[in-house]
């Protein structure tokens, strides 16, 4: 027990907010640079990629739609891991991570839905159908909105962190449902064509731009997540310092 506590103590020390801010200051300039380079390369490759023999130019939508959809699920997974950090270690940085990730995840999920809709209209003949894939991703979007509301509903993050963590973990059940919805149910949305048993079914001329774009947007996610986490730590410091200032002003008043 004592050993477990001291181990957790060391781990917590390693991830303390001040150290995180120092780490962010060093890492962010590099991360921003690499993100911009990879995204620029990905965009150039997407622009150079040939049109699909069936889908024509709309295959270009794939290069952004698929990374957004992947990231919508990866962001939720990051939030679920953070939720475990909040519940098991009660680490404040875990709650900061979950709170900072939620709006970014919501933005990527919204973009996956919008670009999917813009791809669906010319290829399927409809903007939207309530099939299992589209519905489960829409549920994911609603869950992000719920978590955003909950994390910002209370002034004291200590009060909302546990509730948010439990809600996030309960919602994680949706992630495998999204991934396997195309296999479990008969959907208008196509089944997996990149991460599947037996390898990707996409021609390399289209697969490479897609993978580079996916790496670029993943880097963008981590850049924005670290920036948003740093903002959240600063916000909590400002609140704490204002409280101290108010208390000392009160004492002087008496």
């Amino acid at each position, binding site marked *: 027990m004592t050993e477990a506590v001291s181990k957790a103590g060391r781990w917590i020390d390693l991830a303390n907010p001040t150290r995180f801010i120092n780490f962010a200051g060093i890492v962010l300039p590099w991360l921003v640079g690499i993100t911009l380079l990879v995204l620029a390369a990905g965009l150039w490759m997407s622009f150079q990629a040939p049109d699909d023999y069936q889908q024509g130019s709309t295959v270009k939508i794939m290069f952004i739609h698929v990374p957004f959809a992947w990231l919508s699920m990866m962001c939720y997974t990051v939030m679920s891991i953070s939720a475990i950090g909040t519940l098991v270690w009660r680490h404040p940085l875990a709650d900061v991570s979950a709170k900072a990730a939620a*709006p970014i995840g919501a933005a990527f999920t919204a973009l996956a839905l*919008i670009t999917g809709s813009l791809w669906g209209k010319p290829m399927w003949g409809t903007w939207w159908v309530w099939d299992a894939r589209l519905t489960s991703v829409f549920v994911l979007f609603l869950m992000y909105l719920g978590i955003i509301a909950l994390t910002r509903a209370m002034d004291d993050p200590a009060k909302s962190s546990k509730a948010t963590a439990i809600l996030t973990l309960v919602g994680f059940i949706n992630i495998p449902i999204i991934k396997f919805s195309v296999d479990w149910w008969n959907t208008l949305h196509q089944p997996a064509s990149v991460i599947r048993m037996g390898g990707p079914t996409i021609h390399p001329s289209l697969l490479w731009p897609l993978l580079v774009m996916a790496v670029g947007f993943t880097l963008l996610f981590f850049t*924005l997540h670290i*920036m948003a986490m740093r*903002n959240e730590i*600063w916000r909590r410091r*400002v609140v704490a310092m204002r409280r*101290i200032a108010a208390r000392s002003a009160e004492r002087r008043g008496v």
Partner: protein
Amino acid sequence: MTHTAFVLASYGVSIAVLAALVGWILIDQRTQRLALQELETRGVRRRSEARTDNAS
């Protein structure tokens, strides 16, 4: 049949949403930085910093 409008709309919406997200994070960063600076110039310190000062 070309579908250029759908492709352009997809990229346009994506750029707009991501620009708004980045803009919001940068504005938030500026707001928090200025608030921290203002508190520090007023001489307000966090409890952890006060403790370090006492110890030294």
